[in-house]
């Protein structure tokens, strides 16, 4: 089957056994064609993976090869091509499920368009059938709009109440009042890692308290699943949402993982082909899991690419990736502190234990846009803006930050180029 061929193409620079310490991260850039590009005469220094990561050749090849040899619609054909497409699609589901420790990946991993759609799916189905006027959903002050607006929409539509866990002076969730906040809560929807602060939240602790209080728990894993080893059972979540494009996979596909009993009891999301078992003039019978939630032709090539991305990540090992990012974050913190001192502020927890490699920067009074513009001239890609987290930005008292985010293909030289370019911005705006 094509799947095994795809697997073998993974990464010339990596070992295929799982001995993470042997990975030579300095060679990984070579697996990512786009990182060989130049911009304004400089090599691209890609520091925006928190927004969307880049793809290794193996992912591009898997998708190409799928289209060149295999494509047909899934779930519908008896012919060989269709059967192969079907197998590849379902194999990707299992691979993705394995990565997050899903106990029953064949049924519990639902492919969506992205993390945003996964959260909206829960809001549109589970929440609509379980929450009514006055029911409380507990969020945090560090959520992405994707985990705020669906709940605001539900608040408008049926009068649910929203509560918010605040943040402390070191940019962590303030859990001192958690039990009181949880009182009467039906759903806790919380990020596992902030896309602005890098904060890794104590999710398992929150989930445990939430379950004690009788609440269901949704994890927005968009930022952590690509960077930190994930096990849904240890996290203690009932739902987990994430996107392929932030973890070396293609755009257009994401995941909702859910506990099977919950998914079974939920009404379908979108209606159409694929999600039904029977349709009559007077009604329909929904399909079984996971297809009940996958109406219409799904993103098949994207699933294949996602599967290849998971293979790539697993062949390096999430533990090794996390360790690499911890080292690199520490390096960035020390280089930036050494070179810019108090002129440069990082909005996020100090140290490396409670944070990922997301560095939201404020440099003197240089506006983040201007900083990002000067960095672009040096080939450095960072994001400037509110990062789709306006309530958090208000809490931080800024309109925007310039955010540099690290991934497995970044190295110390990238941080050095970043620091040099920040210094140039300092000269320009002196």
């Amino acid at each position, binding site marked *: 089957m094509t799947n095994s061929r795809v697997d073998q193409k993974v990464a010339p620079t990596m070992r295929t056994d799982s001995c993470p310490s042997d990975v030579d991260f300095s060679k990984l850039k070579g697996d990512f064609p786009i990182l060989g590009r130049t911009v304004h005469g400089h090599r691209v220094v890609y520091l925006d993976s928190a927004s969307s990561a880049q793809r290794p050749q193996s992912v591009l090849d898997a998708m190409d090869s799928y289209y060149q040899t295999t494509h047909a619609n899934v779930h519908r054909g008896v012919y060989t091509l269709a059967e192969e497409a079907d197998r590849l699609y379902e194999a990707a589901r299992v691979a993705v499920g394995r990565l997050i420790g899903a106990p029953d990946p064949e049924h519990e991993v639902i492919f969506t368009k992205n993390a945003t759609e996964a959260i909206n799916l829960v809001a549109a189905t589970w929440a609509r059938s379980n929450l009514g006027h006055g029911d409380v959903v507990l969020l945090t002050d560090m959520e992405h709009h994707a985990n705020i607006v669906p709940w605001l929409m539900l608040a408008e539509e049926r009068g649910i109440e929203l509560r918010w866990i605040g943040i402390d002076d070191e940019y962590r969730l303030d859990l001192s009042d958690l039990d009181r906040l949880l009182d009467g809560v039906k759903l806790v929807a919380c990020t596992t890692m902030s896309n602005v602060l890098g904060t890794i939240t104590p999710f398992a602790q929150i989930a445990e308290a939430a379950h004690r209080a009788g609440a269901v728990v949704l994890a927005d894993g968009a930022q952590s699943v690509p960077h930190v080893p994930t096990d849904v059972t240890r996290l203690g979540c009932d739902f987990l949402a994430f996107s392929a494009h932030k973890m070396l996979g293609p755009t257009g596909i994401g995941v909702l993982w859910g506990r099977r009993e919950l998914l079974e009891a939920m009404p379908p999301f979108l209606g159409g082909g694929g999600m039904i078992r029977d349709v009559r003039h007077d009604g329909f019978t929904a399909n079984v899991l996971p297809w009940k939630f996958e109406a219409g032709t799904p993103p098949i090539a994207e699933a294949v690419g996602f599967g290849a991305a998971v293979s790539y990540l697993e062949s390096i090992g999430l533990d090794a990736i996390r360790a690499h990012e911890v080292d690199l974050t520490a390096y960035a913190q020390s280089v930036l502190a050494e070179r810019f001192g108090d002129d440069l502020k990082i909005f996020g927890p100090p140290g490396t234990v409670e944070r990922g490699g997301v560095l939201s920067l404020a440099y003197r009074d240089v*506006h983040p*846009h*201007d900083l990002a*513009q*000067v960095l672009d001239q040096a080939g450095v890609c960072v994001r400037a803006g*509110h990062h789709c987290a306006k309530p958090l*930005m208000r809490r931080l008292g800024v*309109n*925007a930050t310039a955010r540099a985010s690290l991934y497995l293909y970044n190295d110390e030289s990238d941080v050095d180029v970043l620091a040099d370019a920040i210094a140039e911005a300092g000269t*320009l705006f002196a």
Partner: protein
Amino acid sequence: MTGLEDLYREIILDHYRSPRNRGELPSPPAQRVEGFNPLCGDEVVVYVQVHDGTVTDIRFAGQGCSISQSSASLMSSAVKGKSVTEARNLIRTFKAMMSVHEARLGDSPEGDVSSNGSAEDGADAPATDPESLGELAALQGVVKFPVRIKCATLSWNTLAQGLDEAEQGIVLDA
């Protein structure tokens, strides 16, 4: 760092460091209008006072990058004391200078709300000579950086809305 000089001209940096007409005016009588650039979080508040068809005073407040702040500063200097008609012509000319790309960028999913209402956007803008813009011509280099055009036009769209509202008498002269 070639290319950046086109964007960050000395006049622009000067207006960014020492903005003219920064502040507030009592409203009423001044018209107070807020503009947002939802893509980047820039905000501008324009206070414009119109009396007998003349922009008698103008101030701006808010937060933003060097381009949006200097553009607001340059704009305030350019329209202060001008007739409303002259101010509108200037807005049109300025936006024409910026319009080549703006028309294309207008379709972005979170487009600039404050520019939605301006019928003068895009192709039918009059081709007044940019030379007539004086200091404002310093912002011409922004066109080479399409993402930043919205920064440059933010305060202008906000002023246009303020002039519309002033003429519609939403806040009457006290």
